């Protein structure tokens, strides 16, 4: 290859770091939230599907990267259909397990068996209905991989008395990220097993140290161990969340572009505590403000290292996915996703 062309290419592929930016406002989202609640209640829940789309779109549309915002493209009617079926399943399940314990136990097993399918459907529904620059994301993970990541590996984690837990987390995140794509281009996660073990051990170590310190302070006042315990719990919770976020997002790349994440435990703890206090002291009215603050915090600690521009991603063939997996996951309170 001759010299000038190569130079040109290098210039075009010059790396630059772009921060995610969140422009949602507490007051604005509060008004959207209240109208959502009101319309959902007076339509006996039917509007909830439209409310979900509006909420998601508010957060997507206000999240910007490199001058473009994200979009949530799910159709409310698709969500409504999924919701109705999910409600029927939930009611049958909860009544059965209350009155016919044997039938209930069998139903739990059945739900566990379809869990991998549910997870893939939910991930695919959310991916395919997310877009950036008019190109949709996609999730192509299979049921077998989900069964390994969400049933077999957690079981091994339990059997190993927790020793394998960091590895389980790595397997799950690898499954989710590596099957996630933007258009036809796959994402990939690069994080070593050692780094998962490291943050896990540090987190637990700090928890134990603080716990011991609290116990030693017990003779001074019986309230100190309680207080220290609460702080330690919050700290370990925040530490693990932050480290996992940084590790997974920071290790994610697509084509020649990559992500960088730099949350800190202290700032995340401050956000969580102030959000809980805000919600509690306003009897829930500040819930939308808390969500805006959380989204802004997340965006502020995430950036993309872009090589050149983001013009060259090709859209994949579009396909339709039902919302049942996603809605059933919501009803059963599964926390799936990145």
């Amino acid at each position: 290859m001759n010299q000038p062309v190569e130079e040109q290419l290098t210039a075009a592929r010059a790396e630059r770091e772009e921060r995610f930016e969140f422009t949602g406002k507490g007051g604005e989202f509060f008004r959207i939230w209240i109208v959502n609640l009101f319309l959902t209640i007076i339509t006996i829940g039917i509007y909830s599907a439209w409310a979900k789309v509006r909420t998601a779109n508010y957060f997507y549309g206000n999240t910007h990267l490199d001058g473009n915002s994200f979009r949530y493209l799910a159709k409310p009617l698709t969500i409504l259909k999924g919701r109705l079926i999910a409600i029927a399943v939930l009611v049958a399940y909860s009544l059965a397990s209350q009155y016919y314990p044997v039938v209930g136990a069998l139903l739990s097993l059945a739900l566990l068996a379809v869990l991998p399918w549910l997870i893939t459907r939910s991930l695919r529904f959310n991916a395919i209905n997310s877009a950036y620059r008019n190109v949709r994301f996609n999730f192509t993970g299979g049921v077998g991989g989900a069964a390994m990541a969400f049933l077999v590996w957690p079981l091994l984690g339990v059997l190993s008395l927790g020793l394998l837990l960091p590895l389980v987390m790595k397997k799950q995140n690898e499954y989710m990220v590596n099957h996630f794509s933007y258009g036809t281009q796959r994402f990939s996660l690069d994080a070593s097993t050692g780094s998962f073990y490291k943050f896990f051990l540090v987190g637990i170590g700090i928890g134990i140290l603080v716990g011991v310190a609290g116990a030693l302070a017990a003779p001074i006042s019986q309230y100190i161990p309680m207080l220290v315990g609460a702080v330690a719990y919050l700290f370990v919770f925040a530490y693990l969340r932050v480290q996992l976020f940084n590790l997974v997002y920071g290790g994610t790349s697509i084509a020649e572009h990559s992500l960088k994440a730099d949350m800190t435990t202290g700032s995340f703890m401050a956000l969580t505590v102030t959000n809980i206090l805000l919600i509690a002291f306003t009897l829930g009215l500040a819930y939308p403000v808390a969500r805006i603050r959380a989204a802004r915090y997340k965006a502020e600690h995430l950036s993309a290292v872009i090589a050149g521009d983001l013009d060259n991603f090709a859209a994949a063939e579009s396909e339709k996915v039902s919302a049942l997996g996603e809605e059933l996951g919501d009803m059963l309170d599964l926390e799936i996703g990145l």
Partner: protein
Amino acid sequence: MIELAGTWFDGNTSRQVPATLRVHRSGEFELAAADHSRRGRFTEFELSAPLGDTARQLALPDGAVFETRDHAGLAKIRDWGHHRHSLELVHLIERHWGAVLGLTVLTAVIVYLGMVYGVPSAARSIAYALPASMLDSADEQTLAVLDRAYFEPSELPQARREALRAEFESRTPALAIPVRIEFRKGGEVGANAFALPGGTVVFTDEMVELAQDDRELLAVYGHELGHLEYRHSLRRAIQGSIVTIAAVLLLGDATATTDVVGAVPLALTDLAWSRDFEREADSFALDFMSAEGIDPGYFASLMQRLECRDRARTSEGFNQSEFDACIGQSDWTSGESGLGDFLSTHPATRERIQRFQEAADSAR
């Protein structure tokens, strides 16, 4: 003519191109991007919903999208009558602080009334609409689970069990559900009686032994029949389902934090409903006792003994003198209501004893 500045996406790649969209009053449009131009009718576009200050997307059937933030320009085109999004009105309300504050108050009132009246009465209607036979075989499974986990076979003499059963059955009023009486050795459950939703009423041996008069057991039996007649178990389960579904629909995207904050009021409401059901069952017991000519005081005396037995049970075992002192106390009506009352499935024992004692006094 209106000119909108924006970005053009071709629908095949992530490439973005600055573009201008000119829309004429007639409804014709011309799109001019750096390397692309198009014309057509504005109605060919599918518009994204207006939402806050977010960009609007105008999508063409082939997947290409023109994106703009020119909200004022789009409003003018709307006023020409070339497009109207179905959520336009919702968007209008969302921008109006006064309307939103009004809706906030209205929503709070509706939620409050719904929890106090709406959900309980909906659950009652649903429970009574379900066939009484639905739970016929449910009790067998539940009792089998309880037998494995807690109970031993009853050690009461068989003659005593049969006599009690005959006594109960002869006094059972006509209910929608056939009633079956069972005895079990309670073990760690202790003195207790409860009704399973399919019509099985279970007494523990300890309960039978604690009673000093069979009329006390009849009083408890009346209370359990109340639970069956009013289908309390089913209603509580239905109420729980309604609230769970409502919570998911209203806060479907809740995070772990809001789950915790939201769980507290829901748990307190469930307990308040449980206390209402206990009061209803007590009312049924009062009616049952007056129909059977049993002094309501028998319910109060058994409740007192249950309460005193609990108080006299210490870590070192049963304290007989404390039990005697407790039974001897004459005034059950005094005492403050405390925070604990709101955390209990049953109304305060003091409140229940007082109710039955007053009924006994007025009957005399």
